[in-house]
């Protein structure tokens, strides 16, 4: 019986970074305040003392500059981990990510490879107001040439980085800020690597499939628990990979429950939920007993005031209501 230890999501990220740095000299971490400051979310605290300034590189506030440099270094044979502090600031380097990282392999006819990992914090919920509360995973999950993953559990936070670094193509890893303090169990076995290609059924169920990812997973599970008390049994699917989407797992679940509720903190229009809903309609229409429900953020710049922010974001009650709507109750 392997022993279990309990650590935080943040700690799991730090362990994963440290393991990567120890195991491969080509790996280095670059980003604003990742060194002396220890990372805006304290995910790289202490790493600079162990690995030095060469491999834990604080950068100027130049997102396009250092992200482009990360891409160049990957082209040059390194395995960089670029930390863009939050997805909000990634709008300043989205040109480098889309026009260079995602495009070079195809546009060069397969001559160039960009084995780069970019980590970004994402999501709302801390009253940071509109400019610091975006959830734009779908912008990147839209782009061919990128892989996009969203670790929602401590095990995934600990285990995904290894596979992302091994991947010869650019991988963007989204860490929802609400998860950093979450605590979870990990086996004490040495190899904690997890795959980054497949969704996972976090909770089996019969009456409806709740499909979600990242920071929305805890809300989906809470809604499912609340509903089970009322005799409604929900299956909860954690996408884990946002590009490519593991639609096999989603469609198999919808085929069983005949009802789909997608929870996505992005804005409804053009959201990842919209893409999944379209694919369900295209590939599982005849399994549907009710229209696909989507629980997304209200289409407003996320407000500062707490009660407004809560009203804008997907909620446990909102998810439960959507399930009941799908059940025509």
């Amino acid at each position, binding site marked *: 019986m392997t022993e279990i230890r309990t650590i935080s999501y943040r700690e799991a990220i730090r362990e994963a970074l440290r393991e990567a740095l120890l195991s491969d000299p080509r790996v*280095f971490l670059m980003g604003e305040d990742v060194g002396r400051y220890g990372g805006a979310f304290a995910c790289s605290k202490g790493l600079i003392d162990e690995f030095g300034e060469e491999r834990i590189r604080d950068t100027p506030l130049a997102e396009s500059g250092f992200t482009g*440099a990360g*891409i160049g270094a990957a082209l040059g044979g390194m395995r960089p981990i670029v930390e863009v502090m939050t997805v909000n600031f990634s709008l300043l380097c989205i040109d480098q990510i889309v026009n260079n990282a995602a495009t070079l392999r195809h546009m060069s006819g397969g001559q160039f490879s960009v084995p780069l990992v970019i980590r970004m914090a994402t999501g709302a919920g801390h009253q940071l107001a509109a400019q610091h509360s975006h959830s734009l995973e779908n912008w990147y999950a839209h782009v061919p040439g990128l892989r996009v993953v969203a670790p929602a559990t401590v095990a995934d936070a600990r285990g995904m980085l290894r596979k992302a670094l091994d991947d010869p193509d650019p991988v963007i890893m989204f860490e929802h800020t609400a998860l950093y303090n979450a605590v979870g169990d990990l086996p004490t076995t040495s190899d904690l690597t997890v795959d980054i290609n497949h969704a996972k059924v976090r909770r089996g169920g019969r009456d409806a499939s709740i499909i979600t990812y990242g920071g929305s997973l805890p809300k989906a599970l809470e809604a499912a628990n609340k509903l089970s008390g009322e005799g409604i049994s929900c299956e909860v699917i954690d996408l884990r990979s946002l590009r490519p989407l593991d639609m096999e797992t989603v469609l198999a679940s919808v085929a069983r429950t005949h009802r789909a509720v997608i929870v996505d903190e992005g804005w409804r229009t053009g959201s990842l939920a919209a893409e999944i809903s379209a694919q369900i309609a295209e590939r599982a229409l005849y399994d549907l007993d009710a229209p696909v429900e989507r629980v997304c953020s209200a289409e407003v710049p996320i407000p500062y005031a707490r009660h407004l922010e809560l009203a804008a974001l997907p909620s446990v009650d909102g998810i439960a209501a959507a399930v009941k709507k799908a059940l025509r109750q």
Partner: protein
Amino acid sequence: MKTSYDGVDLRREHLLELARQMILIRCFEEKCAELYSVEKIRGFLHLYIGEEANAVGVMQALEAEDAIVATYREHGHALARGLPPTEVMAEMYGKAAGSSRGRGGSMHICDAAYRFYGGFAIVGGGLPLAVGLALADKMLSRKRLTCCFFGEGAAAEGEFHESLNLAALWKLPVLFVCENNGYAMGTALERSEAVTDIYLHAESLGVPAQTVDGMDVLAVEEATRLAAAKVRAGQGPQFLENRTYRFRAHSMFDAELYRDKAEVEEWKRRGPLVQFKAWTVDRGILTEADFNSLEGEVEHIVAEAVRFAEAAPLEPVADLAKDVMTPGASETEARS
């Protein structure tokens, strides 16, 4: 042009090679203009005619192992670096035998064998990449540099400042070559930059910089050898502002309303080939006959390149999604 150029081989054989490369670029670009008018080449086409001295001069100072990052006006750089004219032309035709397998076109010529990372069509987009390539070389202690070409228009982009600062801050082996041809598409330099001396921008960001006569291939080679030596010696990045001029429009869709004909003619009189021919023939190193035979030889090369491009097959549509991701990297991608 100057009377002497230290560090530059002024013997016949080397000067013949410089002439040959410049004539090849000139002839290749003029053929492209013709092919564009009969819709053989489509999309955007930005010609290098008038600026040949820069690519040819700089490439002389680079090693096979050095990396090159350029812009959408990169045909001359590709040819001067040694990419086969047949493949460059095939790329203009969008053929699978092209340098980028027909996927990049005129603005995205690239070839890994020559570490020619290619054309970048986003103004300033290549600069951070060049910094990254140099960062990798420094971290892996490899003795080589990255040469980054861009126009003066890029100086207005944030990425210009971010990249030069990073290169200087981390003392990275980057050679920045700014081909200042006076116009960012339709905007003259004095209408877009408060400080029109681009080399001063570089100095303010901590990158040693100087201007070079971009119409004089020998001056370009001389300045590049000096700068490259400093970079290889680990003194960090260097910056060359090559002052030059493009004789043709920004691209094929441009009515050139922003400059008058007289100015163009005036620069043509001081064109790179005109000056180089006069300088070499006056000193009796090369002869009129040399230039004529070179032109004949180049005509044949360009004609062959066109035949190759015409005959080359297109990439099958079935391969459309090939190389979006690395094959086998993710089963889901393969399955869905």
